[in-house]
Every structure is written in C-alpha cells, then in structure tokens.
C-alpha cells in the first residue's frame, strides 16, 4: 500500500466494514423468513 498512507487505508477499510454491517442489518431485517418462488414450472428467470 505504498501509495496510500496507512491511516487513510485503515480508515477506508473501517468505513467499508461499517457500510457492510449496516447493509447486512438492513437486509436481514427486511427479509421475510422464507422467500420461496411460487412458480410451479419455471426452471429459471433471466
């Protein structure tokens, strides 16, 4: 990491972790316990 000061890199890493934690929390609280496709016959959907 020769191009970026260590403190800046560690700060960016911390911000990335916090964002991921927030996204993760939002995601799991907004998910219903079971999201099952109700489509009877469709193998897939592009």
């Amino acid at each position, binding site marked *: 990491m020769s191009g970026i000061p260590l403190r800046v890199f560690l700060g960016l890493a911390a911000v990335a972790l916090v964002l991921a934690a927030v*996204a993760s929390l939002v995601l799991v609280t907004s998910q219903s316990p*079971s*999201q099952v*496709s109700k489509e009877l016959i469709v193998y*897939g959907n592009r």
Partner: protein
Amino acid sequence: MVGLAALLILAPLLLPGYVLTYDMVFVPRPALTRELLGLGTSVARAVPSDLLVALASRALPADWVQKLVLAGILAGAGLGAARLAPTGLPAGRAAAGVLYVWNAFVYERLLMGHWALLVSYAALPWVVLAAAAYRGDGAEGTSGAATARRWTGPPSLRRLAAALAVAAVSPPGGVIASVLALLVAGFPGRRRRPASMRRLALVGGVALVLNAPWWVPSVLHPGGVPVRPVGVAAFASRPDGPLGTVGSLVTLGGIWNANVVPPGRDSLLWLPAFALVVVVAAVGWRRCVAAGRLDGGAVGGLLAAAGIGLLVAAAGALPGLDQGLRLVVEHVPGGGLLRDGQKFVAPLAVALAAGFGAGVEWLAGLLATPARRRVAACLLVAIPLLLLPTLAWGAWGRLGVARYPASWAEARAAVTADRVPGGLLVLPWHLYVGFPWNHDRVVLQPAQRYFPRRVVTNDDLELRGLTVPGEDPWSPRLAPLVLGSGPLAPAVPPAGVRWVLVEKIGPWSAYPPRLAGAELILDRGDLALYRGPPPRPVELPAAPAAPVLAADVVALALLGWIAAGPVASLRRRLIESRNSEGGIHG
C-alpha cells in the same frame, strides 16, 4: 471457524428429510439402473454423481447421505482453502476458509442444487496444493517454512490424482480441476521449475481416465450430445447488481438464473467491503511471492486459471467473444460444457480466498497492539458473513427439508411389483415442479429417480418467455399426445408407456378424464397412479455398453491405485507401532 460457518448454513437442513431444490434431487434408495453409468438414453450429465449416491444409499439412508455430502462439501472446501492460504496466522487461514465457503458462488449453486459441482469446487484448493507440489525441483521457500511446505510438499502423482478424482464427480468440475492442475503444475516460474512435459502428460492422462466415466458415454452418445444453440444465450452469465456482468462475476455471482441471486446484490453498500477483500487478497499474494515464501510459478498458474475462468464465464456477455462461445458450443465436441459459464469463476474464488488469508496476516500486522490485531482479525474473518448474511440458516429459509409423502412409497411399491416392462409417464407435463409438501420449492421432477423404471416426462427447460428443447429422445414422442386433448389411455401404450403417474399439482385435473379406460391403481390426495395394458416396446438410442464399461473399469483401477497409497501407509504405521510396542515390552 469453517465448521461454524458450515453449521450456520446447514443447521436447518440437518433435520430428518430431503433438501429438494432445482437440480438437487435425492430420493430414498435410488434404483441402480443403466442410466447411472451413462448407458441410458439421456446425456451423461449426472455421471458418476448419481451412481455414487445410489451406492452410498445402500449403506445409509439417502437423506443422511445428502446431509453428509452437503456437510462434506462445506468442510472440505473451507479446510482446503485454509490449508492453501499462504499464511501461518490462524486468523488468516480462518478468513480464507470462511470466504471460500461463504460467497455468492456457493449461495447460487447451492440453491440451484448443483451439489456435484460444489463437490468439485471443494476439491479445487486441494488440487492446487497437490499440483504445486508436483512441479519440478528447485529452491524451497526461504521463510514461512510451514507455508512453503504445504505448497511444495513431496511431489506425489497419487495425491494429485486423489484431488482430481474428487473433482471428477461432476463433468464441468472435472474439466475445471484438470485445467487448473495443468496450469499450476506447468506454469513457468523461476524458483521451482514447472513440471516436465512427461509429468504434465501424466497429469493429463490421469485426468482423462478419471473423467472417462462421463466423457466416454457422451462421445459415444448416438448422434452426439444434442446441441441447443438457444441455450447459449439463455444460460450466459448475467449482471446481478450495479457492476455489470464482469463485475458480478468478479464478485463471484453472475449466474444466469435471477431466481437464485442472493438478496441485496443490487445494493451498493456491500461493494466497498468486497473491494477491501480484493485489495487485501492482491496485497497478500504480492507480498508472499515477493518475500519468497511461495513459488511464483504455482501462484502464476492459479492466477492464470482464475483469469481464464473469468474470461470463459464472461464470454457469453462480451461482444465478439459471445460469437466465439456460440461457435464452440455448436461445433466443438464437449463445447456444451461451456454453457452456464458462471461456474468457471470457481478458480477465481480459490485465488481470492487464499490471497485474502495471506492479506489478513499483513493487515493485522499493520496494527500496533495485540488487542487491535485481534479485533481486526475477527472483523476480517467476519467480512464474508457481512457481505452475504442471507446465506445463513439454509439461505435464510429458501432451503429446507421435506419428506416424500407416504403415497409415493405406495406408488413405488405398486410399480416395482409389476413385471411387465414399459415406461412410466409423469404428468403434469413439466420438468421442474413445485410440491406443497416441499413448500412449493422448484425442483427437478423427483419421479425420475424415485421409481425403478424408465420415467418419461417433458424434458424441455422452461424459462420465463423461453423454452430450451430437451435432450431425451423419448419425450418428443409423447409430447404431441400429452399436449393434445384426446384420450391418453389408448394412446400411450403404443408409445411404450405402461404406467401413468398424475401428480396433483398445477393443471392436473385435466388428465383423469383423458385416462378413462386405464386401471386406477392408486388415488391419494397428492397423486393418482394408472396402469395400462402391456405396451409396445420402444427402441431408443443409447451409448454402446462395452467401451463405456471398459472406461469405467480403467477409472476404477486408477481409483484402486490411488487408494492403495493410504492403505499401504496405514498398514506400515500399524506394523511399526506393533513393533515398537513389542520392543518396549520385550
């Protein structure tokens, strides 16, 4: 940590019952049929995986077999990545193992039910380790001795063959592992010479023999393996988030089927953390090679495999390359393996996970105090879980266990007791179905494996707005009869059908009136079983038995040679231990 991650994913799936999702179909005591050897009329896509399950189900209940397979995949994958990670730091190894087990690739393939491909995926880190050790002589690592030993070890063709044998459980996995082994063993490098041409030829030969059980029947399939050009575009990798197709693949997602994409992939918030993973992995590899801890040639081979895999996976979506991919699929024998290209990012997952493990050691080392280092290590190990929290608990409830209703066993008993030959037609006329007893999860028609006689149903892959024609030669003969509106009872025996199973889902109620005249053998809440008169025999093309069985015997002999190594070693240790005990007492 790897065990904990595996348990977090699999916990709800360890209850009694079967996990039935898309292509993952396990049934109680599957019949031993010619199809399992690739000698049926279908393309040998599930060879030898279905055979191994059928044999294992003779020793254990099939749902236990399935649970052992799933647990073995995650444990084997995680431990392999942890061992491959060029770091002595336990947190680094844990980070590598957790990332390799907990990512979008595993999520999507698990939901698609591609368990055999995941077996191959689990074998890849072991393939890299064995192939790296199989390179030519040269200087060993100068620091990080334990790490270097794992990567160099004693060269052993038997060890490499064992890893390749596990990967050969699935056809595409066998191809990925073979190319990976050749690249890691043969990539130019200065510290250790690449494996000689003789050694590489041996590796190639071993890979060919181990994969023969599926490629020999495929090559000999009458008329060749059917080519479906429409499938090239249908199963091409696709963007599942803001990064486009290539970005989705780099982040180990990008599967063609939008129904199995992890929730949250369309968000931007997880991207900085994934970028951190990539940066840490890149620094980890660079420092290991620069410090002389690893053989740059082996690392180069792994990274080359990752790059080639990414290119193949993205080919269907890149202008110019998509035409090349279409040409290969349509005109090169075996080119169909490149369909559903996203699976080829598996070597990238290996490189990312192992490099990440090495990078964790570097990043933790940047911090001043042991307490900070510990906190940082814990956070880094947890990143994969933050990136994909919904993989936990059976993909957040999208996977679960189900039991086949008692009616299925009754139907099988009736069909098994019948000595008159003839096929079993399954209605409604769909290959993928959802059953209320399986919580409506879409699954490949389980009757194909459940009943001990040839099952015929619609073989087309029905996508939304598109149908990819199937490959079974029997199905098109029945399709006009089933899709018409005339009586079925007199029409199907001349087409070789003895039994008709009506699963009471979807538009099932249209069928019983059309089956008037056939004998109703079983009528339960979820199915009805009809029997017709002895049918007319049907002639369907199949691969010739002799060369296929010969290929199986040669592959089996090679497996025997692989197994002989550990057996001899165990025997030697036992004798030595007895002798030393005798020495003490004597």
